[in-house]
């Protein structure tokens, strides 16, 4: 496997993604959605009290970003990870283009690595757009007031911005884990509907599973638990245990899923 080959495939995948309507719509929604939410919050009289940081959304724009993060961790991030990860391989089956792609000068391993890089890249970019947009929306629409931490301490704007940024960055490992699961389903099922839909269903099932009493270890082994590990960053003093544990679980999901997907693709016969 050569860096040149992987780069070539990744560039081709990026060009394909930029030409697709779904990726543009997804990124546009990530950019615009937080502004719509912040505007709605500002206009309405009530606040989403039952949500973490929901009480503070009219006082601090940083709280808006964290409410968006809390909601996104439940629904949006699993969708964003699968929208490309769950389609990046099966789209070749849908268009019948495997025979076109695999009869060029790139090895299968390079095709695999390039596509995975593109899927992880899209997940990262979507997360970054959502993060930047939610922070910008909060600051522009609500203002840069200090944020009350989960421990009740007041965080000045500069520290609040740092913590919020770290909170967004902390969801990258589980996003990568979910992207890898979507990639595996895309390779194994050769079906984009399954590749995109099943990871979202799986994420929902894991979140429901986390609500059921059971051994703590089982809850921690759910990759979706890592989406909530950022809470520790908003405590005073912050604690990182769940972050590290979540990162380890996410990496495990990614390694196992990508390992199986790679083996399936390598052994696959591209027949009619």
């Amino acid at each position, binding site marked *: 496997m050569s860096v040149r080959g992987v780069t070539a495939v990744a*560039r*081709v995948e990026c060009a394909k993604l930029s030409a697709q309507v779904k990726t543009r719509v997804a990124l546009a929604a990530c950019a615009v959605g937080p502004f719509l939410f912040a505007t709605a919050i500002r206009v309405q009289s009530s606040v989403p009290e039952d949500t973490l940081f929901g009480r503070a959304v009219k006082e601090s724009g940083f709280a808006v970003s964290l409410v968006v993060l809390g909601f996104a961790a439940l629904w949006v991030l699993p969708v964003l990870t699968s929208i490309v990860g769950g389609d990046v391989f099966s789209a070749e089956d849908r268009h019948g283009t495997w025979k076109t792609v695999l*009869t060029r000068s790139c090895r299968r391993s390079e095709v695999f690595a390039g596509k995975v890089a593109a899927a992880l890249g899209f997940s990262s970019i979507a997360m970054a757009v959502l993060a930047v947009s939610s922070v910008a929306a909060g600051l522009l629409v609500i203002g840069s007031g200090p944020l009350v931490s989960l421990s009740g301490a007041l965080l000045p704007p500069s520290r609040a911005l740092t913590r919020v940024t770290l909170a967004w960055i902390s969801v990258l490992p589980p996003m990568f884990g979910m992207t890898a699961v979507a990639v595996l389903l895309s390779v194994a099922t050769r079906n984009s509907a399954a590749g995109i839909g099943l990871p979202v269903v799986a994420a929902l099932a894991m979140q429901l599973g986390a609500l059921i009493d059971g051994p703590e270890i089982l809850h921690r082994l759910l990759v979706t638990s890592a989406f909530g590990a950022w809470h520790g960053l908003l405590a005073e003093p912050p604690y990182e245990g769940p972050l590290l544990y979540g990162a380890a679980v996410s990496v495990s999901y990614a390694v196992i899923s990508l390992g199986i997907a790679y083996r399936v693709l390598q052994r696959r016969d591209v*027949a009619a």
Partner: protein
Amino acid sequence: MTPVALEAIGVSKSYATREALHDVDLVARRGEIHGLLGPNGAGKTTLLRVLLGLVRPDTGRVRLLGRDLAAGSALPNGVSGLIDVPAFYPYMSARRNLTLLARLDCTTRAAGGAAVDAALEQTGLDAHADAKVGGYSAGMRQRLGIAAALLRSPQLLLLDEPTSSLDPAGARDVRALARRLANQGAAVVLSSHDMEEVEELCSMLTIVDRGRIVFNGTVDELRSRAPAPPHALHTSDDRAARALASRSPGVRVIPAAHGGLDVSADLAALDAYVVALGRAGIAVRELQRCTRSLEWLFVELTTPPSKLDAAEVMRAS
């Protein structure tokens, strides 16, 4: 530079309970157009997929342009192919599709752009290059598939029924292209159902039937394998002539597609049959020796005798 561009030795491939290829050997040399013939489901496309690395053989070895083709490896530079109906990304233009394929060939942006323009021009797609492929006809996709193959400056070109979706002018262009590449020293393997096309283009032939090679050699060698050349016979009473043939040893008579009868027999048996026709009061109006067409030979090689007899009965009725 070795004259052998393609060497497949002992290639076998099975799917579940079906044996798609059994111990297949195929050698194609530079400068020749090698025809690959066989009925539907014979294994031609599977063989081409194995040769292009899309399908892993259970056993056997494939060498392309002097390099062993390993599982999952990249296709050697200079090898390209066209399998079935070519497929591209429908939401992008032909030019964009080819540009991305050139990138997968790790060509530089400038070289890739020039190669794309040249390939589009060679296949007559330059006027439609910026239209989305989703709106292309099957023939235009076929041309685009050929353009994609040309991007790799083929020294070995594997074509699976490349003219099947093309109009006569397009088919003529593809044949001319295959000839030109062969004249320039490339090896071209052409799978086709068009016997006239194969007869016109190919110097070597391989016939596959039910996953096995049933013939491998030149067109002349194939003709020479035929036991006796057929004769076209027109008589005053073809029905009676057929009935008489059934009682004449060494004579086989079937109704011809365009009227009259096709007679297969060696010279002595034919002489005896013609004399017998005269004695029976059946006038021989025309008796002409025919060159055995490839189609005739192909059917003989790939059709079980029981089916041949049934076909003859159907034609007679």
